[in-house]
C-alpha cells in the first residue's frame, strides 16, 4: 500500500477583524505614528494594539492523518470546523501556518463545480477551458470528449451553444462531467454533489466509487450529506473546532457526528 497523502501537524491561523486598515493612506499614518513612537491613530478605543493575541484564530490545529492509495476518505464536521480550510491547503490555494502536507501524484481539486466557466463560450469550449484549469492536457480532453458529453446527458446539438443559454441543471451536469474525467491520482471534492437531481447525484457517487475501485484513485470527500459519505467512503475524519475529534472507520465517525449534532 502506498501512502498518497501525509498530513503532519497541520495548523492554519487566521487574523480576525480587519487586515491592515483597508486603505494605503491609513496604513501609512499608522506606520508613521509607530516610527515616531506615538500611539496608532487608528487604534480603536479601549484596545491595546491592533494585532493582539486575542484576534488570532486557529482554523486548523495540529491535524495529522494519512491516506492510502485507493482509499476514500470522508471529512465531516459542522460549519466552521475547518473542512474547507483543510481542502484549500491540500489544493495549494492557501499555505498552512505550521506543519506539512506531502502528496504523491497529481491532485485534482473540485471545490466548486464549473470553475472558470465563461457564459459566452459554448459548451464545447467550456469543457476544454474547465478541463485545462483542472490540470488536464488538451489531448486528454480530446480523447474523453464524447464520454464527457454522454455523461453530462446533454443532447449533442446543445454542445455548441453558449452555456448562458443552458438550464442550470445542464450547466452543472456538464461541469461535473468534466471533473469526472480528471485523471489525477488524487481527487479532492467539496460539497460538489449538492447540485443536480438525486439521480445525477447517485450517478456521480457511482462514478467516484468506480474510479477509486478500478483505477486505484484516492478520494478526499467533504460533505454534509451523511448518506453520500456513508455510500462513498470507507474511512472518515470528524473535525471539530479545527481539531480531529474522531478518525477511523466511516461508520464509527458518522455515529460520533450524529451524536455531536444532537448534543
Amino acid at each position, binding site marked *: 500500500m502506498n501512502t498518497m497523502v*501525509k498530513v503532519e501537524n497541520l495548523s492554519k491561523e*487566521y487574523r480576525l477583524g480587519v*487586515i*491592515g486598515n*483597508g*486603505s*494605503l*493612506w491609513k*496604513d501609512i499614518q499608522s506606520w508613521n505614528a509607530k516610527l515616531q513612537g506615538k500611539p496608532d491613530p487608528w487604534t480603536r478605543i479601549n484596545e491595546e494594539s491592533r494585532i493582539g493575541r486575542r484576534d488570532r484564530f486557529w482554523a486548523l490545529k495540529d491535524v495529522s492523518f494519512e491516506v492510502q492509495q485507493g482509499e476514500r476518505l470522508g471529512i465531516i464536521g459542522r460549519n466552521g470546523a475547518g473542512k474547507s480550510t483543510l481542502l*484549500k*491547503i*491540500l*489544493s*495549494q*490555494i*492557501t*499555505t*498552512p*501556518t*505550521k*506543519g*506539512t*502536507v*506531502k*502528496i*504523491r*501524484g*497529481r*491532485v485534482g*481539486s473540485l*471545490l*466548486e463545480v464549473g*470553475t*472558470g466557466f*465563461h457564459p*459566452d*463560450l459554448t459548451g464545447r*469550449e467550456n469543457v*476544454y*477551458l474547465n478541463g*485545462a*484549469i*483542472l*490540470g*488536464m*492536457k*488538451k489531448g486528454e480532453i480530446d480523447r474523453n470528449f464524447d464520454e464527457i458529453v454522454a455523461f453530462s446527458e446533454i443532447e449533442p446539438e446543445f454542445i455548441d451553444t*453558449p452555456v448562458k443559454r443552458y438550464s442550470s441543471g445542464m450547466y452543472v451536469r456538464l461541469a461535473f462531467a468534466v471533473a469526472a474525467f480528471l485523471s489525477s491520482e488524487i481527487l479532492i471534492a467539496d460539497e460538489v454533489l449538492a447540485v443536480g437531481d438525486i439521480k445525477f447525484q447517485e450517478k456521480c457517487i457511482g462514478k467516484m466509487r468506480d474510479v477509486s475501485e478500478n483505477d486505484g484513485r484516492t478520494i478526499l470527500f467533504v460533505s454534509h450529506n451523511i448518506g453520500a459519505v456513508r455510500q462513498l467512503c470507507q474511512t472518515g475524519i470528524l473535525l471539530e473546532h479545527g481539531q480531529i475529534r474522531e478518525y477511523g472507520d466511516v461508520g464509527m465517525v458518522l455515529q460520533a457526528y450524529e451524536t455531536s449534532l444532537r448534543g
Partner: protein
Amino acid sequence: MAATDNEEWDVVISAKRKRLGFDFKELRQYKDLVKLMIRREFVSVYKQTIFGPLWFVLQPLMSTFLYMFVFGNIAQMGTDGIPQPLFYFSGTMLWTFFATTLQKCSDTFVNNSGLFGKVYFPRFTMPITYMVNAFFTLCIQFAVMMIFYVYYFLNGFHFTPTWWIVATPLYIFQLALLGMGFGIMISALTTKYRDLRNLVSFGLSLLMYATPVVYPISSVPIKWKLLFQLNPVTPIIEMFRFSFFGSGNYDIKMWIYSLVVSVVVFLIGLMTFNHNEQTFIDVV
C-alpha cells in the same frame, strides 16, 4: 524525517514561502491552459458586439483623428515631419499595448479571486494571457499602420526607414516586460489596498502625456528633456518612430537605459508576484 523522505513526494506543502525561484517548468505544463485563457479573454471582449474584432482597430483610429484635430490643428504641435495620422497612430498603438498590459496585469488577483480561490494553477498564467491578448491587438493595429505607411509611400512621401527596423520585436518585447513588470508589482499591492486601482487608471492617463505619444520629444524644452527620457517608455516610442520613419530622436544611450529598466522592473515584479501568490487569498 531525513531529506531522502522528502524526495519520494511530488508535492510538499509547508509554511515556507518561495521567494526567488520561478517555476517555468510548471508553467510549461499548463501551456494548453494559457492558450484557452487567451481565447477566452479575446472572445469575451467582442461577443455580442456589432463590429466585433473591428473594435480593435476603430479605437486607435478614433483617437488618431481626435489627436490630429486637437494637437495637430488646434495646438499646432509638430510631428518631426512624419505624416500626422502615422505619427499619432503609431504612438497610440504602442502606448495602448503598454497601458492595457499594465492595467490588466495589475488587476490579476482582484479579478480572478473567484477562480484562484477554488483551484490551483500557476497564477502567472493570467498576466501572460493579458499580455498576449494586448499583443494580438497590437498586431492587428500594426497591420493597419502598415496600410497607412504604404499609402503614403505610394503617394510620394519619402520615408527613410533605418536598419533599426529589425529591432522592432525587441521594442515590443520591452514594452511587454515593462507593462507586465509594473502590472504584477501593483497587483500584489491591490489585493490589500484597493485604492491603488483608481490610481492606476488615473495615473496611466496622466503618464501618457509625459510620454511622447501626441508630441515628439524634440518639441520638449532642453532643460526638461532628460526628465522626460527617464520615463522608460519614451525611448522605446522614439526608437520605433526613428526606425520606421527615419526622423525623430535617436538616442542609443537612453534606449539601453530603458532596456535595463525593463528587465529589472520585470524581475522585481516577478519576485513580488511570486511572493504574494501564495497568501493573497487570505487577504483579498
